[in-house]
């Protein structure tokens, strides 16, 4: 046959394009693990919206001193002169979230509350993660008695009613915002330790750990270079979601009156303040409630997105 038939030509074309695709696939500029993860994260719209929301809330909270009081009034001191007229106003242009019983603007209090909530979320998670990582790594790596003792301690921590435990701890440490961080942080370690322990245990069983040992890598090198990078994804994900639950814990503790003290605003305390007016002025509870909801949801969605992005096997999928 002198000339290829149309089908053959089509076949050849198809082959050529698939070759080209292969080329472009393997010819991609080499990237790092994190570079790849970022690329995959960017494709996840929900996670990006969540991240943008978190950054927005954080920026607003950080810069609040510069503009919020000037426009919306002080978050703490009651506007006594105008109290009679501005008390319990529904949302309006002047007070987008309405005002509370002492005439304070709800929006500015939500903004200042975000400072407390985000700080608690981050710091408490940092404390939990630090303790949890060490405990989890020790339990998984040394095993035996060590493992038993650490994990039974974790079980005991988890078996206690959480809020009661935090309240007791705050009562013992003394009531202050710092101690709220510390209490929530300390009580958060068992779940992180569990997640990290199981991550290490499953990674440790991988053939490439044996392969690295058979190449002469030391224990330290194996943990640092082979086990940690492969289990860090689950920790990042878990810590991100943990920020959300720490924010919720703070809200619960403050709601119960053991956390942030009035007149300082925190989302939990604002809900507590508002509960008396649930029927007459629902925005008192709804606005800080929405703030908690959106922020915690954002952290959870971001955590989900990170989990997918950091999963190496999802690459090219």
């Amino acid at each position, binding site marked *: 046959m002198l000339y290829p038939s149309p089908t053959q030509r089509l076949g050849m074309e198809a082959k050529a394009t698939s070759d080209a695709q292969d080329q472009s696939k393997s010819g991609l500029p080499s990237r790092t693990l994190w570079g790849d993860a970022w690329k995959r994260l960017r494709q996840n719209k929900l996670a990006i919206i969540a991240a943008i929301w978190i950054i927005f809330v954080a920026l607003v909270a950080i810069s609040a001193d510069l503009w919020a009081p000037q426009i919306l009034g002080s978050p703490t001191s009651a506007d006594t002169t105008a109290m009679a007229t501005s008390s319990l106003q529904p949302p309006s242009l002047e007070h987008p979230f309405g005002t509370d019983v002492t005439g304070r603007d709800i929006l500015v209090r939500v903004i200042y509350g975000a400072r407390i909530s985000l700080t608690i979320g981050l710091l408490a998670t940092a404390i939990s993660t630090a303790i949890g990582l060490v405990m989890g790594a020790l339990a998984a790596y040394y095993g035996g008695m060590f493992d038993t003792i650490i994990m039974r301690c974790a079980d005991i921590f988890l078996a206690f009613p959480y809020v009661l435990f935090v309240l007791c701890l705050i009562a013992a440490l003394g009531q202050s915002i710092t101690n709220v961080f510390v209490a929530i942080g300390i009580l958060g370690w068992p779940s992180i330790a569990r997640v990290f322990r199981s991550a290490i245990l499953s990674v440790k069983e991988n053939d*490439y750990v044996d*392969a690295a*040992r*058979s*190449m*002469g890598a*030391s224990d330290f090198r194996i943990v640092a270079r082979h086990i940690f990078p492969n289990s860090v994804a689950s920790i990042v994900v878990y810590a991100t979601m943990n920020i959300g639950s720490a924010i919720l814990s703070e809200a619960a503790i403050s709601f119960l009156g053991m956390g942030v003290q009035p007149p300082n605003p925190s989302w939990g305390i604002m809900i507590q303040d508002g509960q008396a007016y649930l029927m007459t002025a629902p925005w008192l509870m709804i606005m800080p409630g929405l703030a908690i909801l959106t922020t915690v949801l954002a952290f959870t969605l971001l955590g989900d997105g990170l989990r997918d992005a950091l999963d*190496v096997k999802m690459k090219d999928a």
Partner: protein
Amino acid sequence: MAKKKHTDYVDLKDQPIPEGQHLLEVDNLKMFFHTEDGVVKAVNGVSYTLDRGETLGVVGESGSGKSVTHMTIMGLIDMPPGKIEDGDIRYRGKSLLEMSEQEMQHVRGNDIAMIFQDPMTSLNPVYKVGRQVGEGLRLHRGYSKQEALERATELLRLVGIPSPEKRVNEYPHQFSGGMRQRVMIAMALACDPDILIADEPTTALDVTIQAQIIELMKEMQQKNGNAIIMITHDLGVVADMADKIMVMYAGRPVEFGTADEIFYESRHPYTWGLIRSIPEQAIDEKKPLTPIHGNPPSLVNLPKGCPFAPRCPYAVDICHEKEPEHITTETGHYSACHFADDPEFLKFAPDTSRSRGKIATGMPDTLEVTEDATKTTGSKKTGGEA
């Protein structure tokens, strides 16, 4: 932690082998696991010697102790629960069992390297291939990152990976199974080791790739002169590769000899069973395979007498009572069977003389294949018409 430089070590592989000794000598090695269920006698008296350029095939079922023996040689068994009960492993006259963990770390990968069964899981998914291939060089030779990467590229070319300059910068998941096993081989050979232990390197690969990988290992052996220990459950894989074959059962070697002796003059019913269960290639009609019935014994409660007796079709009373000694021929071919020197008994051996020279391989010689292929198609057609 003070980092020890590679120059602080003496490369064992540069030292001469003491007079009258071998490259590797395994001497009555016994490695037991002490578990809650009892003592698992995973390796129970394994002995062999290996020289440079030689290939030893270690054959046996799952749980026969073939992998554990070699993990022990590499010092990769966790102790406890594992414990060396007896025996010694000498590499160039030096006992590996007496070495400190640090010394062993330098032996691993540098003097003795290992290839694992499953190439899909033996590479770390978060690192680029080049970095993993170069890891040994950085650990043992003190190469810089750049030097290691350059050498890794060369190694990848050597093991037949196309456009290695590009591939070094890719992640393992971008490689196919066969390509990954090539990467594993490159990784293991990076430091030019004396001994390459291959633990079922082809089991996870398809047949055509299997043949390529074995070819590659042979080729690399010719270049480097390293010894190979080929662990497999498939006699066919070692057939045309191994100089010597050790057949293991229940943690002990039951037969040991040259490849020819094992295939054509086998003296142990377990080896016969393994030979009979190799699928024959040239068959005109469908013939059922002959499996070895039953399962390997529990290594915790080994039966009294010969461990193979419960599954052995020829077992008689003495087999259930007395553990057989090794019966050795003048060529060093030994068999742990009471009847290994009984010519009447040896008549039960499978007739492999017919297939002499071609049993071996995944690939019989071409002419025969074509003939048989035509024959098979022919007979099928007839069947269809009828």
